[in-house]
């Protein structure tokens, strides 16, 4: 609907190093996938700032076009509704990420510090600034409210140990998009041993997040 009615350019290029050309429909699809993955994953996933930027660009285009096109109220209001829905998905995605940053901030910052050169970051530059500020604020607050009144040898709190880590053992539902073979599953109880499974395309499973974390990052499975 977006490409025919509103004369929006049907191509959108990725801002990153690869020249991936997506139609708006595919872009929204990617946004929804990233949104669902982020909602159901127990830890903060890779940042998808290219998708976010492209979606914001698209929304601006659509708004431009809506302002110009005055004919027929019905089309305008339907497109406006679509824009509202996309805006909601985008802000829900960003809110979910912010919630996870606030929840796990020492571990995320530690991971960012020890990240290798080629590995993708889980924080966009703005999110990184937010996380650092949040950490400083929390430390200052704890110091001023409690720690500076304690005896001198107890005035430190190790936030890495105090703040709980994301629980990678929690179970998630997933749908398989690309067939996987020979996935090693670790035992849950001491009596079981490691076993190997294959994932068929289109099948749905309930499995521990830790086992399939790399598959979520590569896009081979979709969390539902």
């Amino acid at each position, binding site marked *: 609907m977006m490409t025919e009615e509103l004369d929006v350019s049907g191509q959108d290029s990725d801002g990153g190093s690869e020249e991936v050309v997506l139609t708006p429909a595919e872009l929204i699809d990617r946004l929804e996938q990233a949104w669902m993955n982020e909602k159901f994953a127990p830890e903060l996933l890779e940042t998808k700032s290219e998708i976010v930027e492209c979606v914001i660009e698209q929304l601006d285009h659509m708004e431009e076009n809506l302002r110009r096109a005055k004919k027929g109220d019905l089309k305008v209001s339907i497109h406006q509704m679509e824009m509202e829905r996309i805006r909601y998905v985008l802000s*829900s995605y960003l*809110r*979910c990420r912010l*919630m996870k940053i*606030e*929840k796990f901030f020492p571990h995320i910052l530690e991971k960012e510090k020890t990240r290798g050169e080629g590995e993708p970051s889980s924080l966009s530059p703005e999110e990184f600034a937010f996380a650092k500020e949040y950490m400083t604020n929390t430390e200052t607050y704890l110091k001023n409210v409690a720690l500076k009144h304690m005896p001198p040898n107890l005035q430190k709190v190790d936030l890495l*140990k*105090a*703040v*709980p880590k994301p*629980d990678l053992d929690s179970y998630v539902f997933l749908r398989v998009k690309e067939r996987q073979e020979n996935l090693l599953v670790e035992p849950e109880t001491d009596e079981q041993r490691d076993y190997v499974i294959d994932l068929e395309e289109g099948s749905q499973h309930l499995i521990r997040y830790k086992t399939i974390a790399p598959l979520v990052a590569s896009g081979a499975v979709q969390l539902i």
Partner: protein
Amino acid sequence: MSEAYFRVESGALGPEENFLSLDDILMSHEKLPVRTEIPMPRLGAFFLDRSGGSETDNAIPQGSKLELPLWLAKGLFDNKRRILSVELPKIYQEGWRTVFSADANVVDLHKMGPHFYGFGSQLLHFDSPENADISQSLLQTFIGRFRRIMDSSQNAYNEDTSALVARLDEMERGLFQTGQKGLNDFQCWEKGQASQITASNLVQNYKKRKFTDMED
């Protein structure tokens, strides 16, 4: 996710309690019967009926029975058992375990120590020979009671639930509240109230405070 404030949840059911969780702090305050393996000098002042008297420097003699909170017992417990040896409270022992396996639904877990599951899970740190049985019993008790909690939390809308939660321990009450919240949110959405903007629960009290300030 539309909450303004996310509390640190209890980690008691996992490998270790969460340092910043208020629920865990309350849970680990419950007492545990222990026996001392070595004499403890100068602690007799706290436990007057156990101390050896002022001539032995107010020490607690070896082998005396005390009740210590869980956090203290965990801190003093050592694998080589030099300082303390821990006895299991009655409800985690054989007798009560058979009661739970008979019918878990009728037991009043709130009376049994309001943190039955959390405390029981942390007890496993003390390397008792009955650990496997305790963990099985905790799991089976929960499985037996869960169905009723889920049913009652999803179907009690706008009514007094005190009779339903009276026999639940703290963790189960948390589950019940989550279920109720889900139910209330859904009903709210059905009535169309979900898009109404309401004051955040963090700032709802501010207006009241300013009012009294003006009166003074």
